[in-house]
């Protein structure tokens, strides 16, 4: 077995910029050593104007620079930085990525294609599972949601939906949201989620992303808990009645994270119902773990698929229905 290496993965997301420092060994899941997360909300600008504005770019650059410095101070051997939906859809996304890389003194900030993002999250979330286990992974981000299905540690078939916790949460200004605001949030979720086919029996359902990893805490459960759809609805009830300021205080969570969960939980409940999932395991692992694993295995080409991807089951270019009996 190779010697463990200390590697860093930073995900420039629509809601947060999130650093993971992990001890990585080839052929084993990364061991998380340190995490740092800051709310920059690039997605808010993109939703409003279609691009990242100068002020937000400045904040993102400072934050990323700080996280890179932190990772280096803690002895990282290499850093992988990947950006997701906010920069994917921003009209100035590639320009912003270049500026971020320059300001943080990095070789590159990779704007990850949705399919690569899904595969990296899938790699990170399923690496500890038996290879013959079929897994359905829901990764609810700030501006997009990836639904991926495939054998654990293997190639997944994915479906990226342009809907995220930040996008939905931003529809409500009142705290708790007014009746009309709830209606609008529910409606947007119902309209944006496509038709999904439930996976075959025996498929393990995993969830990752900011909303899902924080839900167990709001239900008084431990990390990695298995949640039932009824419990997810219980959290929705809570959001309908209690201001997020109270909830943040009650659960010892960031106010902004709780506010974002308000949107994410509505997406999760709909996805679980549409996919026929009565329960889902909340995974603490995901995109950043996959990035760290990629860094360990492929170095500076960490985001590239390990080999020529096998022939896809479905045509490219259009969203796919997930739930395939692979």
């Amino acid at each position, binding site marked *: 077995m190779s010697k463990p290496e200390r590697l860093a993965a930073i995900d420039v997301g629509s809601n947060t910029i999130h650093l993971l420092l992990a001890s990585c060994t080839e052929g084993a899941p990364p061991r998380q050593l340190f995490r740092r997360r800051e709310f920059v909300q690039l997605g808010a600008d993109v939703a409003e104007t279609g691009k990242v504005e100068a002020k937000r770019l400045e904040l993102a650059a400072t934050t990323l620079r700080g996280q890179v410095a932190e990772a280096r101070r803690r002895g990282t051997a290499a850093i992988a930085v990947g950006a997701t939906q906010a920069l994917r859809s921003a009209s100035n996304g590639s320009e912003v990525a270049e500026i971020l890389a320059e300001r943080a003194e990095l070789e590159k900030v990779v704007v990850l294609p949705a399919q690569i993002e899904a595969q990296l999250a899938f790699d990170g979330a399923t690496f500890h599972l038996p290879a013959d286990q079929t897994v359905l992974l829901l990764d609810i981000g700030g501006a997009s949601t990836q639904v991926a299905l495939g054998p654990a540690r293997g190639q997944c078939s994915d479906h990226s939906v*342009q809907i995220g916790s930040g996008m939905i949460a931003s529809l409500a200004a009142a705290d708790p949201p007014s009746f009309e605001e709830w*209606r609008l949030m*529910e*409606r947007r979720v*119902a*309209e*944006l*989620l*496509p*038709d*999904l*086919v439930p996976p*075959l029996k025996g498929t393990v359902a995993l969830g990752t992303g900011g909303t899902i990893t924080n839900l167990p805490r709001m239900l008084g459960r431990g990390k990695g808990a298995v949640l*039932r*759809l*009824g419990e997810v*609805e*219980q959290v*929705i*009830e809570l959001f309908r009645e209690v201001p997020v300021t109270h909830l943040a205080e009650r659960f010892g969570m960031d106010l902004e994270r709780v506010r974002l969960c308000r949107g994410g939980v509505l997406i999760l*409940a*709909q996805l*679980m*119902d*549409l*996919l*026929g999932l*009565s329960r889902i395991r909340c995974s603490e692992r995901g995109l950043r773990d996959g990035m760290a694993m990629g860094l360990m295995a492929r170095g500076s080409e960490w985001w590239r698929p390990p080999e020529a991807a096998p022939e896809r*089951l*479905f*045509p490219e270019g*259009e*969203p*796919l*229905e997930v*739930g*395939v*009996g692979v």
Partner: protein
Amino acid sequence: MSEPLSCFELAEQSTGDRSEVLRWAAARLPLVSDEEAVHDTRVALRRMRESILGFDRCIASGDRDNARRLRKVESLLGSLRDSEVRLQLLDEVLGPVAVWRDRSDDPRLARAYGISVISKPGDATRPGLRGLETEARRLLADLTAAESTLARERMLSGPVLRTLSKLSVPPVIIHTRQSSRPALGRARQQLPALFRRAARQHSGEGDLHRRRIRTRRLRYRLELYGPVLSPEHRSVLEELRELQGMLGRFHDLAVLVEWIDAAARDQRRELRPALRRLTVRVELEQESAKELAEAELRRLDAAAWWQAAQRACLG
């Protein structure tokens, strides 16, 4: 040349005809299979009430209070009618309960069917039931059916039927100086104000609701005075009936959305995502009904149709 119809004659004719219609409609009420019996009875009650209100000065004092009694029975029948309308709308908007969605786009079956499994984002709310929607849909139908049965038992109990039977007897019309005047004069006194009210625009949420009520009022009163109005009043009535249908559909869908919301609160949590999606579908339908009704009202208002209709009816 024949004498113009007097208020007395028209009151006697309309109350006589309408009580007969009411008697027949009420007789059909106990027949569960007669889907239109409740609606027909309510309409007959409203028309009878309009006759009494329209000719109140010709009605014997003992029977004038019948208008209030008719209103009471009509609202009692309302809850039964509401549940029947709800069942129809649920069927129409969400599809019949027993039908399971076409799963031929299931990727597992796609190859066998030789069709694409691609789902277009715009199809997100296409017809067909997904997730627990089938169960949620069935639940809505069951709840409505239970409410309908309860309402039927309550409405069709002895006292309500006895009251209906009493109200089906035509009121006594009395001869007075006023009742011998031409009915057209009475129509000219009453109809302009009803036309003005129906044409009045309001801002805000309640506008369509107010206009629905006023349009209905105008239509019933026009029907009452129909025999003394110019023949053109028939096309006015037709237009009003069409408008009322549009406004009524919007109202029924709005009530249905509220009802699903209230019903969802008491159901097991797992069903709520599906119930939320069903609500969205009804809301979309409600919005298109609203657009149609508003467009029709705009068209009539812009063409000063109300004033022209009043002139056409009264000369």
